């Protein structure tokens, strides 16, 4: 089927968009009555166009009216690039992000970092800052994400459509406040890019419930040794994870830190379809043994693009310059842009309906004998 084909009225859709690892990931969701939701954002590094926006617009959806919610799962450059442009265009959308207890301190941090010179500012705070301006202009509230919160609730054609946030845990929210204090003290110089330490533990995991179908989107949440943080907090404390999910967006690019046996035992259906995006920077994810583990535990494992081992610099340069760079004492490797889309649709009204997966661009099904 062509990528421009819209889902039918009796279908929901969860599409994972990947860029090959270095330029982020995003999820596009179709819920009740042609409502669309965008989770995180990533861009094409050449055109700078936000990919989820491009995808939905190509389906012929009027984003200014039909996108109802934009969710920022966490504060990492590879999940947020282009999100302010999406928010500007989606004029009916609400904005959801992890709960912040000390709002003033958080806003001070964003104001300070985003007012830095471009070279040194963190692009995530620039994006936040722009989103805040849109919120101010539209006089809209921020929807805070915390454990077991309902952020979307519609009834359409006799079916309930719900989205819960399962994280960040209370302890992760407290830790984030402390981290902001530490980051503010680093504002001695304007030429340094502030890099948050562990935003993955503050990731917003989403549980979608449509009729009797459940889907789990793991963001970049990791497993911590502290039972009050990460996946263990969800597994130990969540009150809304009764139904087992038939679709799982694997956490944190299939890393070892994102895996816990209990996620599969307690939250996922035996026939679960798993999908993930790779991480192709200096470190590569998922590692082969984790790919094997996810493959063994899922009915089908789909990736947006392969894990590639790029050890070469870009090829667009003048030959002489390229030769000279090679002679230097610098190891240079390109962060490749390798777009792929894993689209999954299901007829939500049918109790025993199965997911129909479609793969576009570099996306593929992982098959390990």
């Amino acid at each position, binding site marked *: 089927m062509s990528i421009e084909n819209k889902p039918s009225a009796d279908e929901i859709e969860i599409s994972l968009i990947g860029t090959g690892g*270095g330029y982020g990931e995003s999820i596009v969701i179709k819920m009740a009555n042609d409502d669309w939701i965008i989770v995180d954002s990533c861009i094409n*590094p*050449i055109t700078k166009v936000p990919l989820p926006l491009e995808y939905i617009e190509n389906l012929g959806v009027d984003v200014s009216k039909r996108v109802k919610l934009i969710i920022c799962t966490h504060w990492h450059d590879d999940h947020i690039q282009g999100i302010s442009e999406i928010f500007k265009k989606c004029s009916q959308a609400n904005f959801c992000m992890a*709960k*912040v207890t000390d*709002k*003033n301190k958080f*806003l*001070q941090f*964003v*104001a*300070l970092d985003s*007012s830095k*010179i471009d*070279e*040194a500012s963190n692009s995530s705070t620039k994006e936040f800052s722009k989103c*805040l301006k849109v*919120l*101010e202009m539209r*006089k809209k*509230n*921020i*929807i*805070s994400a915390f454990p077991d919160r309902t952020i979307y609730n519609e009834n359409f054609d006799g079916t309930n459509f719900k989205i819960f946030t399962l994280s960040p845990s209370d302890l992760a929210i407290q830790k984030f406040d402390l981290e902001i204090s530490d980051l503010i003290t680093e*504002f*001695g*110089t*304007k*030429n*340094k*890019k*502030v*890099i948050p330490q562990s935003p993955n533990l503050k990731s917003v995991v989403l549980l979608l419930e449509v009729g009797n179908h459940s889907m789990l989107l793991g963001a970049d949440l990791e497993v911590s040794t502290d039972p009050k943080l990460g996946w263990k907090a969800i597994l130990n404390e969540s009150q809304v994870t009764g139904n087992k999910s038939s679709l799982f967006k694997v956490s944190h690019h299939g890393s070892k830190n994102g895996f816990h046996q209990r996620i599969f035992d307690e939250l996922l259906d035996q026939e679960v379809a798993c999908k993930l995006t790779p991480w192709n*920077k*200096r470190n590569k994810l998922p590692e082969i043994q984790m790919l094997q583990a996810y493959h063994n535990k899922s009915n089908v494992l789909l990736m947006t693009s392969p894990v590639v081992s790029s050890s070469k*610099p*870009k090829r*667009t*340069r*003048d030959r*002489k*310059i390229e030769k*000279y*760079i090679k002679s*230097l*004492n*610098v*190891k*240079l*490797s*390109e*962060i*490749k*842009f390798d777009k792929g889309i894993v689209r999954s649709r299901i007829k939500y009204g049918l109790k025993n309906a199965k997911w129909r997966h479609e793969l576009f661009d570099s996306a593929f099904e992982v098959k390990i004998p």
Partner: protein
Amino acid sequence: MEKHIDSTDQLNEMGDTMSIISEPDNTQSDYNEHHTKVLKNSLEEQVDTRFKLKPVLQSSSKHFEITANLLDPDPVLDKIYSLDSFQVSGKYVLNRLHGNYTQKIQKWKGHITEVLKEGFVAKLEDLTNQGTDEIGEFDIDDISTQDRPLISVGSVFYWTVGYFIKNGQISKQSLIRFQRLKEWSMQEYDKAIDTAEDLSKKINWD
């Protein structure tokens, strides 16, 4: 301390020079001392006597290297840098060129993502060809001793490689310069705090 002005990018990126091309007859006749004088006077009228002009004759145009004291922030230089070309007089235009470099040049803006025992890893944004980013692993020996204390996660630097022409001699160069900017002023800090307080009043969190 006197530094050259980088003609193509940030002031403190590299020790390059800014060129002036006289127009419209920049290929005509011999180098003319009178021209230099006129140009120098018109520049000095509009900019500042701190700029020093040194005429350099090149094959296709008349170039003038400018050096300036860059220790203090300079609004005139800022103005020049904010423009692609700076009208010096009705007759002369100050162009942003590649200074002494030829067109064969490659520039990156990097920020350090990891510090290693004898070097560092950085994410590099290609300023010459745009598009995709790169990861570079650098050796500490290639960083000047003055810049080494600046090596830490998050530090921003510029890396330029190219073919350099000086006094007719061509040489290859790789330059890494870390950004050095002045500390935040109390006014800048207060402004950010005010912005935050203002936003805090206007935006509610459910």
